[in-house]
C-alpha cells in the first residue's frame, strides 16, 4: 500500500472515531462513547508496547505495570487533595519513566525468555506491593477523589474527555511514527532483526533499547492516568500480569511493526471480549483457541503484511 493510500485510510479511521460522540448522542447510546473511549485508552497503551515489542522485539510481560503506576500517581495525589491535572499527569509520566529505567536497566541485560520472565517478575512484585499498601485501599483499591483538573477542558464532560483521549492517541501515533522512522528507530529495528550485525557496525543496542523502554513506559503511564480518570477508580488489578498479556495480544492481533496496528488490535480484542462474554459464560473456551489460531495464522496482524515487507 502506497504511503498516500495509507494516509487516506488512516485519515478515514480517525474521522470515524471523531464521529462517535455525535452519533452516540443521536442514537441515545452514551454507552458507546464510554466503550470506544476505553478502547482508545488501551490503544495508547498498546501503541506504547508496540514500540518495544513490535519494533524492538522486546517481549515485555510487565507492561501493564505502567498503567498501574500512572493510575496510582494520579489517584494518590488526588487522595491528598492535589487535583491539578498537569501536575498529576506529569508525575504519572515521570514516575513511569523512572520505574521503567530501573526495571529496564536490569532486564535489558538479558534476552529471550529470560527477559520475558524478569519483566513478568517485576510486574508481580509491583502488584503484590500495591495489594499490601493499606493506605490506598490495598486490593480493594480506591475511588478517585476527583477527576484531574485541566485548563480549558472539563473531564466530567464525556465528549470533551473523549476528544482529549482521541487527540492523545493521534499524538502518540504521530510521534511513534516519527520515532521509528528516525535514526533512533532504525537502530532499534536493526537490533531486533539482527543484533550481531548491529554490533558489527559499531552500535551498541543496550542504551537505545533502554531509551525505547523508558519512552514506552512513560507513554503507558499517560495511558494509566487517562484510564484512572475514565474508570474513576484505581486498583492493583491494573498491574496484573494477565493484563500485560492482553496488551500483547492487542499488539499482535493488530499487527506488529505498524503504527495503526495496536489501535485495530485493541478494538478487535476488547469488542470480541465484550460480545463473547455476553453470549456464554464459557467464552474463554472460544477465545483461547481463537488467540492460538490468530498467532499461528495472522502472524502479521490485521494491518499489513505488505507493509512489513516494504520496510
Amino acid at each position, binding site marked *: 500500500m502506497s504511503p498516500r493510500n495509507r494516509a487516506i485510510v488512516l485519515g478515514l479511521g480517525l474521522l470515524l472515531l471523531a464521529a462517535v460522540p455525535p452519533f452516540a448522542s443521536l442514537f441515545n447510546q452514551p454507552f458507546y462513547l464510554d466503550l470506544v473511549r476505553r478502547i482508545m485508552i488501551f490503544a495508547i497503551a498498546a501503541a506504547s508496547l508496540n514500540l518495544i*515489542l513490535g519494533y524492538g522485539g522486546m*517481549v515485555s*510481560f510487565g507492561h501493564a505495570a505502567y498503567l498501574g503506576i500512572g493510575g496510582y500517581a494520579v489517584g494518590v495525589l488526588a487522595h491528598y487533595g492535589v487535583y491539578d491535572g498537569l501536575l498529576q499527569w506529569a508525575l504519572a509520566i515521570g514516575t513511569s519513566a523512572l520505574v521503567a529505567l530501573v526495571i529496564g536497566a*536490569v*532486564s535489558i*541485560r*538479558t534476552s*529471550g*525468555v*529470560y527477559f*520475558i*520472565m*524478569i519483566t*513478568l*517478575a*517485576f510486574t*508481580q*512484585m509491583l502488584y*503484590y*506491593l500495591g495489594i*499490601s499498601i*493499606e493506605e490506598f485501599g490495598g486490593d480493594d483499591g480506591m475511588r478517585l477523589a476527583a477527576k484531574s483538573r485541566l485548563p480549558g477542558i472539563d473531564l466530567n464532560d464525556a465528549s470533551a474527555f473523549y476528544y482529549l483521549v482521541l487527540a492523545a492517541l493521534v499524538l502518540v501515533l504521530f510521534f511513534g511514527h516519527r520515532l521509528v522512522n528516525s535514526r533512533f528507530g532504525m537502530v532499534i529495528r536493526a537490533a531486533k532483526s539482527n543484533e550481531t550485525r548491529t554490533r558489527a557496525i559499531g552500535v551498541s543496542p543496550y542504551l537505545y533499547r533502554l531509551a525505547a523502554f523508558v519512552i514506552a513506559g512513560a507513554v503507558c503511564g499517560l495511558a494509566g492516568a487517562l484510564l484512572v480518570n475514565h474508570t474513576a477508580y484505581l486498583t492493583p488489578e491494573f498491574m496484573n*500480569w494477565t493484563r500485560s*498479556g492482553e496488551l*500483547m*495480544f492487542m499488539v*499482535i492481533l493488530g499487527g506488529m511493526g505498524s503504527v495503526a496496528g495496536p489501535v485495530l488490535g485493541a478494538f478487535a480484542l476488547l469488542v470480541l471480549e465484550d460480545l463473547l462474554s455476553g453470549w456464554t459464560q*464459557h467464552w*474463554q*473456551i472460544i*477465545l*483461547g*483457541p*481463537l*488467540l*492460538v489460531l490468530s*498467532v*499461528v495464522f495472522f*502472524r502479521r496482524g490485521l494491518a499489513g503484511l505488505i507493509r512489513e515487507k516494504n520496510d
Partner: protein
Amino acid sequence: MRLEIAGGLERFEGPGRGTIRAPFFLPPLNLILVLEQTLNGLQLGVMLFLMAAGLTLVFGIMNLVNLAHGSFYMVGAYLATYFYATTGSYLLGVLLGLAGTLAVGVAVELVALRTLYERDHLDQVLATFGLILFFNELAAMLWGRAALYTNIPEYLSGHVDLLPGLRYPLYRLVIIAVGLAVAGLLWFVVARTRLGMLIRAGASNRAMVAALGINIRFLYTLVFGFGAALAGLAGLMAGPIYAVQPGMGELILIEVFVVIVIGGIGSIRGALAGALIVGMVDTLGRAFLKPTLATVISPTAADAAGPALASMLIYLLMAAVLALRPQGLFPARL
C-alpha cells in the same frame, strides 16, 4: 487492644522443644522448628522440580516456551482424582492419571505445537497462553468450577516421628522420596542411556541428529509427552493436599518459571538446584522473615513489611541472580 504480637515469638511454649541462644540479630532458634521448615522447603522444592524438569527439558530440546505446562499439572490432578473415584484404587488412579496426561501431552504436541517450533518465543508464549484458557474452560465444562473432592489413601496418611518432637506427615515424606527418585531416574536416563544421548545430542545440534537418520519428530513428541507426564505427576501428588479446580496450574506456574530462570533454562541440574533454592527461600522466608525483621525494626512495621516482602522474595532472588549471572546458575549442558 493488640497485645504482644510479633514480639511474643521469644516465648516458645510446648514440651520438649530445644531453644538455642542465637546472635543478637536473629530470634532465638528453635532447632526442631528449623529442621521441620527445612523439610517443608525440601518438599516444596521437589514439587517445583517435577514441574520445572518437564518445562526445562522441553525448552532445552525443542526451544519451546510452553505456558500451558501448568495445564498438564491440572490435567494430571483431575484425571488421577477421577480414576481414583471411579476405580476405588489409588494406585490405579495414579497410573491411569499419568498415562492420561502423557496422552494429552502427545495430542497437544501433535495438534497444536508442531507449527510453533520454528516461531520465536513471543508467538509460543501467546499461543500457549491461549491453550491455558482452553484447558481451564474444558475442565470447568467437564467437572464444573467447584473444587473436586480428593483424599489421601489410608496407607499414606498419618505421621512419622522422625525425631523426638518432630512429627512429619507421611504423605509429604513420600512426595520428597518420589521427587528425588524421579530426579535420579532422569539423571540416569539422560546420562546413561541411548535415549538420553539422543536427547543431549538433539539439544546441541538438531540438524546433525536428523541428518544421522534419527526420527527427530518422534523424539520431540516423546520428550514433550514425558515432560507433560512429569507435570501431571506433580499435579496428582498435589491434588490431595491442594485444591483441584480450574486454574490450579497458573498459581504455581510463575514460581516454576522463576525456578528455571534461576537454575538456567534447558538444564535439568539447573532445574533441581533452582527448585530446591526457591523452595527453601520461599518456605524459610514465610516462616522466619517477619520474626527476623521484628528484631531490627518495630513489631508493627514488621507485621506490615514481613508478609509483603515474603511474597516478593523469590522475585527479588530471581532479579538478583539474573543481574549477576544472566544465563542462570547452571546453564544448559543438561
